C-alpha cells in the first residue's frame, strides 16, 4: 500500500460517517444534560409542586405540568440523569461480568468451569426475560439497587454466550498459538490477545444492554419495581397512562420523545464506533 499513512485512521473514518456524527452529538447533548443534573445545575425542581394540575406549556412551565402540578420539563430533564445512570451502570456491569465468564468458559471449553457457566446461563435464559427481571427486582425489593441487579442478572448471559463462542473460535487461531509460542503464559494470552479481539462484540453488546436497560426500566417502573427515589421516563410514562385517558399528552410526549432520541443517537454512535474501531473492516 504505497503512501499509506496508518495514523488518524480511526478519526478519519469517524469524521466521514455523518449519521455517526449525528449520533455522537445527540448522545453528547444528553450526556451534558445528565452531567448538569448530576452537578445540581438543572432539573432540581422535579418534585416541587409549582403549578396547577395539567397546565399547558408556558414560559414558566415549558412542557406544562402533570396531574400533581409538577413541572414536566424539570422531570424530563432529571430523568436523563436517571437513564444514564441506569444504562451505564447496567451496561458496564453486565459487560464486565459477561466477558469474564464468557472468556473463562470459552478458553476452558469442555472443562468443569465451562460446564458451570453454560449451565447457569442456560438456566437464566430459559426463564422469560421480563418475568425474570420482575421476579429478581421483586425479590430484592428492599435494596435500592433491585432493578439494576435484576437487569444485570438477565443481561450478562447474552454477552457471556457471545464472548464464549468468539473465544472458542479465537483459541485455535494461529495468532493465539503464536502468542503461546513467544512464551506468554495462557492467562496473558487470554487477556492481551483473545479478549481484545472480542472488543467489537463487547462494544455492540454494551450498547444493546444500555438501550435494553433504559427500555426495561420503563416496564419495571410501570410495574412499581423500578426507580424508587427520583423520577424516570418510565415513571412519567406510568403516570401518563392515566393522563392520556383525559387527553393530557404532555407528560407522555416529554418522556417518550427524549427516550426515542437518546436510543436513536446511541445506536448511531455505536454503529459508527464499530466501523471505525474494528481494524478488520478497514482492509481493502
Amino acid at each position, binding site marked *: *500500500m504505497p503512501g*499509506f*499513512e*496508518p*495514523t488518524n485512521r480511526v478519526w478519519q473514518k469517524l469524521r466521514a460517517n455523518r449519521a455517526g456524527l449525528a449520533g455522537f452529538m445527540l448522545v453528547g447533548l444528553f450526556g451534558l444534560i445528565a452531567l448538569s443534573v448530576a452537578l445540581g445545575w438543572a432539573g432540581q425542581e422535579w418534585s416541587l409542586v409549582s403549578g396547577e394540575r395539567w397546565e399547558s406549556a408556558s414560559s414558566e412551565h415549558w412542557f406544562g405540568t402533570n396531574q400533581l402540578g409538577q413541572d414536566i420539563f424539570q422531570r424530563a430533564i432529571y430523568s436523563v440523569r436517571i437513564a444514564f445512570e441506569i444504562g451505564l451502570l447496567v451496561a458496564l456491569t453486565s459487560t464486565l461480568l459477561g466477558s469474564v465468564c464468557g472468556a473463562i468458559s470459552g478458553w476452558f471449553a469442555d472443562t468443569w468451569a465451562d460446564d458451570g457457566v453454560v449451565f447457569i446461563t442456560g438456566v437464566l435464559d430459559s426463564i422469560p426475560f421480563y418475568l425474570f427481571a420482575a421476579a429478581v427486582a421483586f425479590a430484592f425489593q428492599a435494596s435500592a439497587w433491585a432493578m439494576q441487579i435484576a437487569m444485570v442478572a438477565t443481561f450478562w448471559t447474552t454477552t457471556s454466550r457471545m464472548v464464549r463462542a468468539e473465544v472458542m473460535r479465537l483459541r485455535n*487461531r*494461529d*495468532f493465539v*498459538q*503464536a*502468542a*503461546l*509460542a*513467544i*512464551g*506468554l*503464559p495462557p492467562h496473558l494470552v487470554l487477556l*492481551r*490477545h483473545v479478549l*481484545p*479481539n472480542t*472488543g467489537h462484540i463487547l462494544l455492540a453488546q454494551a450498547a444493546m444492554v444500555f438501550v435494553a436497560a433504559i427500555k426495561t426500566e420503563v416496564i419495571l417502573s410501570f410495574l412499581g419495581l423500578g426507580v424508587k427515589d427520583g423520577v424516570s421516563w418510565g415513571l412519567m410514562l406510568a403516570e401518563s397512562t392515566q393522563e392520556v385517558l383525559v387527553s393530557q399528552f404532555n407528560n407522555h410526549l416529554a418522556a417518550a420523545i427524549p427516550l426515542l432520541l437518546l436510543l436513536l443517537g446511541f445506536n448511531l454512535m455505536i454503529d459508527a464506533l464499530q466501523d471505525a474501531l474494528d*481494524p*478488520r473492516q*478497514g*482492509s481493502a
Partner: protein
Amino acid sequence: MSPALEDPVLAVQDLRVTLPSRQGRLAVVDGVSLELRAGEILGLVGESGCGKSMTGAALLGMAPGASGQVSSTSMRLGDLDLAQLDERGWRRIRGSRISMVFQEPLTALDPVFSVGNQLLEVIRRHQPFNRRQARTAAADMLASVGFADCDRIMRCYPHELSGGMRQRVLLAMAMVCHPQVLVADEPTTALDVTTQAQILHLVRDLARQSGTAVLLITHDLAIVEAVCDRAMVMYCGRISEEGPTHALMQFPRHPYTAGLLAAMPRLSPGRVEPVKDIPGSVPAPGQRPAGCSFSNRCERADGLCRSQVPVLHCADPAMPAAVHRHACHHPLAHPSGSATA
C-alpha cells in the same frame, strides 16, 4: 571443520507426541530423533497429516490440544536439558532460544494490534530492555528482514500489509531475540512463488548470519532442494529417510521418498518424466498398518514389511552412518552399486 562434526545445537532422541483416542493413546509422532547444528537448515518433508507440524510444535514443548502429550528420551538445547523443563521454564525458552514461524501470515498476527506493538511484546518479554532500547531493537530487526521504512511498518496493522510483508514481520518476531533454533512451519505455503523465493532466501541468510539452526517444515521438495542442507522425510509419524539434500534427492533409497520425488513436477529440460502420484493416501493415526506404515501403499512391500517396523539404518556403507539413512527393508538400489539388498 565440517558441519557434521560440530556439536549439535539441538539434539532430540526418540520424540513422541501422543493423543488420546478410543483405542488408547495414539502416537502421531512416533520416535523421531533429530540433530540441528548452528546455521544449518534441515528440511522436514512429508504429506499432510504425517506429523510434521506436531514435531515442530513439540520442539517448543507445545503439545497439540489440552490432552496431547510430548515425551522424549533426551532433548538438549546446547547445555540445557529441555526434557527437565517445566511449563515456566519452557516459557522462558519459547520465543527467545527456540522460536517459531507459522504457516499463515494472515492469521498468525493479532489483527487488533500494530506490528510494532507485537514485535515489542516479544522483546520486552525476553530482554531486559527499556522502551527506547526495545524500539531500536525492533526497528533494527525490521530492517534486517528487508523493510526500508521501519517506523511506518511499526505503526501498521497486519491487514495493511501484504502476505510477504506479514511473513517478514513474523520472521522478525521470531528472530528478534536471536534464537538458537527456528522452527518454520510451512512458512511460504500461503505465499505466491516469487515471494516464496524471497522469504526462503531471507530465512537462509538470517540463519547463516546469526548461526540460528532452522527446522524448515514443508510438503514441497522443491523448497528443500532450494534451501535445505539436509532433509528428513517423514511418514506416519516416523522418519523414513534422512540425508544431505542432494544425496536424498539424487539417490532416494526409500520408496516413499522416490514416490514423493516422482510426484514433484519438474520443468528442467533434461527431465520429462510424467508426474506420478503415490497410490492411496496417508492412513489416519488409528489405521496405520503393522510393520512399515508405508507397506499398504508400497509396491515393494512383502511379508517382512507388514510384520516388522524397519529401523533407520545406513544407506551406503561407504559413507558414515550419520549421513544418509533410511528405514526400509527393501530399499531402492544405489546407482553406485554398493547397495545391499
